[in-house]
């Protein structure tokens, strides 16, 4: 089978606001950077384009209409896939695997600063009959999840902030992490809890960001001047859209996606065989659930290992050295591509101050956020074979 690699990456942002560009101009900036990163001409070299967007986030009905010109995709095959952007990247991966396409461009963006009433939009994602009209912010679900985790495994409330402290400090080394800060537990201990037990700092803020990733077949990658990062395996799945039908400590979809990517990459011991992970941490406790679901630690032990420093920059298995969502912000559905971008920099040895000495194989796990149960996982490597 033909192998698929990432030959070009481009970003504009992330940042808390981006008043200087429209969403199309932001994508253009990212696209120009991605194309120049691998030296391709979108009008000649690219076989297909995929945009990732949702109407309600963009604020335009049939937002797909507006995805064309800024990518250089006029009169070319381009489509929109509405999912977490890592799952959208999987569509590009599959297109190349068919053998009919050599180069596929994937775009995703967030112009969160344009949205006035995000919680109302989230409400529209809830089941219209049973869940929508509670008239409370949908993040209540995260609050219940966090409380359930702490109680189930007998942790103190303060322990939860360890994840926040780790990721916010990691972000200090990352020039793109606009929400990084040098916090410690004392700062958070008396902070007001907005979704008890979560404080403002424990919830990743949303950000504006624009990402463009260029995928290519092995044959094409050999022809251009680039540093290919190989997609070893990629998988996504959803459980159910209904919050009512899910367990608060629900690892099923996380296990499903991570086991699939391990199986396809012949990985039996992920913690030893992989070098670092970029894992969804949109709430402090999410990182814990995800680490346990992806089998990096036993159930209930993630927080203990975080406190021991196992997942720090210097730890035996660094998690979210980029600072994660807690430092980078969540660029809505572009979150997956933001993690791919950060992982690619590590694997290319271009990560600057946050560069890990031994970064060969990366694991990425993303969630589409409340109220979905959509998870995506991927393994990236800077070598053709693990």
């Amino acid at each position, binding site marked *: *089978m033909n192998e698929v690699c990432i030959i070009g990456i481009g970003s504009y942002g992330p940042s808390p606001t981006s008043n200087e560009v429209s969403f199309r101009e932001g994508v253009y900036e990212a696209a120009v950077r991605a194309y120049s990163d691998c030296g391709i001409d979108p009008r000649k070299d690219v076989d297909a384009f995929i945009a990732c967007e*949702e*109407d*309600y986030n963009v*604020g*335009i*009905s*049939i937002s*797909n*209409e*507006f*995805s*064309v*010109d800024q990518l250089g*995709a*006029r*009169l*070319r*095959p*381009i*489509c*929109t*896939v*509405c*999912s977490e952007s890592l*799952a*959208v990247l*999987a*569509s590009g*991966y*599959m*297109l190349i*695997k*068919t*053998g*009919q396409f050599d180069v596929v461009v994937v775009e995703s963006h967030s112009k969160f600063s344009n949205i006035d009433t995000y919680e109302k*939009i*989230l409400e*529209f*994602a809830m*089941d*219209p*009959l049973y869940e929508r009209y509670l008239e409370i912010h949908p993040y209540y679900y995260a609050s219940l999840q966090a409380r359930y985790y702490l109680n189930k495994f007998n942790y103190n409330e303060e322990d939860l902030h360890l994840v926040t402290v780790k990721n916010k400090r990691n972000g200090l080394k990352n020039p793109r992490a606009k929400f990084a800060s040098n916090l410690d537990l004392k700062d958070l201990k008396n902070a007001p809890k907005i979704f008890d037990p979560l404080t403002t700092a424990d919830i990743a803020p949303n950000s504006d960001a624009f990402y463009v990733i260029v995928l290519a077949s092995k044959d094409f990658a050999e022809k251009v001047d680039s540093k290919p990062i190989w997609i070893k395996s990629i*998988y*996504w*799945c*959803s*459980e*159910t*859209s*209904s919050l009512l039908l899910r367990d608060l400590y629900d690892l*099923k*979809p996380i296990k*499903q996606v991570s086991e699939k990517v391990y199986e396809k990459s012949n990985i039996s011991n992920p913690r030893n065989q992989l070098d670092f992970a970029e894992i969804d941490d949109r709430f402090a406790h999410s990182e814990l659930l995800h680490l346990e679901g992806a089998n990096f630690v036993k159930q209930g032990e993630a927080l203990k290992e975080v406190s021991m420093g196992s997942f720090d920059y210097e730890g035996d298995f660094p998690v979210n050295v980029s600072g994660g969502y807690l430092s980078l912000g969540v660029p809505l559905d572009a979150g997956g591509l933001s993690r791919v971008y950060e992982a690619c920099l590590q694997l290319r040895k271009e990560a600057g101050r946050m560069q890990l000495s031994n970064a060969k194989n990366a694991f990425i796990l993303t969630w*589409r956020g409340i*109220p*979905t149960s*959509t998870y995506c996982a991927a393994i990236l490597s800077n070598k053709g074979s693990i």
Partner: protein
Amino acid sequence: MKTNINFRNRVAIIGAGMTIFRRKLKDTPQELTYQATKMALESAGMDFKDVEACVIGSAPDAFDGVHMKGEHLSDGALAYLKPVKRVFVGGATGVFTAISAWWHVASGMFDVVVAVAEEKMSSAKPHPQAVFLHIWDPITEKPLNPNLIWIFAMEMHRYMHKYNIKKEDIALVSVKNKKNALDHPSASAAGKYTVEDVLNSEVLVYPVQRLDISPVTDGAAAIVLASEKVARRYTDSPVWIEGVGWNLDSTHWTSRELAYPLYLEYAGNMAYKMANIDNPRKQLDFAEVYDPFNYKELHHMEGLKLADKGKAPEMVREGITQRDGDLPICPSGGLLGVGNPIAAAGMMKVCELYWQLTYQADKRQVRIKNGYGLAQAWGDLMQVSTVIITRGG
């Protein structure tokens, strides 16, 4: 028949199903999705446990009034703990859902994939056209408050003017499709009409009249796709996907020549090349081209090179596009006759390919010579086309 040498993994359609198409159906979007998925699986002789992944198609979220509609519909598509995603290219979504499911199987990642498209238009208040008030450039176009019928009236006018086409000839398409739909069990707008009926119907935006246009409809349609090794286990008559193509033109529709759909020519070329078709007019047995308006059928026949530019009306007049003609167009009855639940309407056309090529189309059956059929859809700001070409066993 020859094998398509372009494909590493061949993909077959092995089942299809669709709900009834009606305005104001009582069923919820999830229920419609479930019904279509279940019917398609039953037609393939499969259980939902056999399905490995699912692709959902649905046009603007605002119709159903649900954000992240793909997530919402995934339960209806029986996609519990399975890879599922929603694809979206405006009105062209229906056929594109099948194309996306094709790449899931053709990549070698999955063996059995369900593609289901759903649309529930009639719950939009006061009228589904209101959803289209927000599809425009927010700065340059929205202040004019245009709607879709306006801009399609412009396109129809331009087409008629450039090639000197009479409304009488265009009206023949409505007459044909609504008559064809009389044989379709799911149809919502079938009937025996004359050219005079069409020309005397209410003017919406000149030159578009009520019978030139497909109705607001709810519904869902689904197909089951399988890899070659699985397809052979379930059926003796798989319908192979031979070519796919899609293409989008610039967002700036105001600077385009509206008389000819160049993006469709490119999408068609992509699909013809994959399917090794060099003379579509001769090699295709029938085509389900997209007909939300009667002039669009003619427009699309020309873009797909089934007729010369400006000459499609002649073919209709001569009866070539009738079900018993030389090149039947929309033997199902199309959107004008069966109904237009946007994404589901495109998928209905792909379902028709399956039923025709496996001789299950009953009274709608056309004569199959070469075994090739084509389905096409169109959408956005007169901007995108998607094409799929299939071949019978």
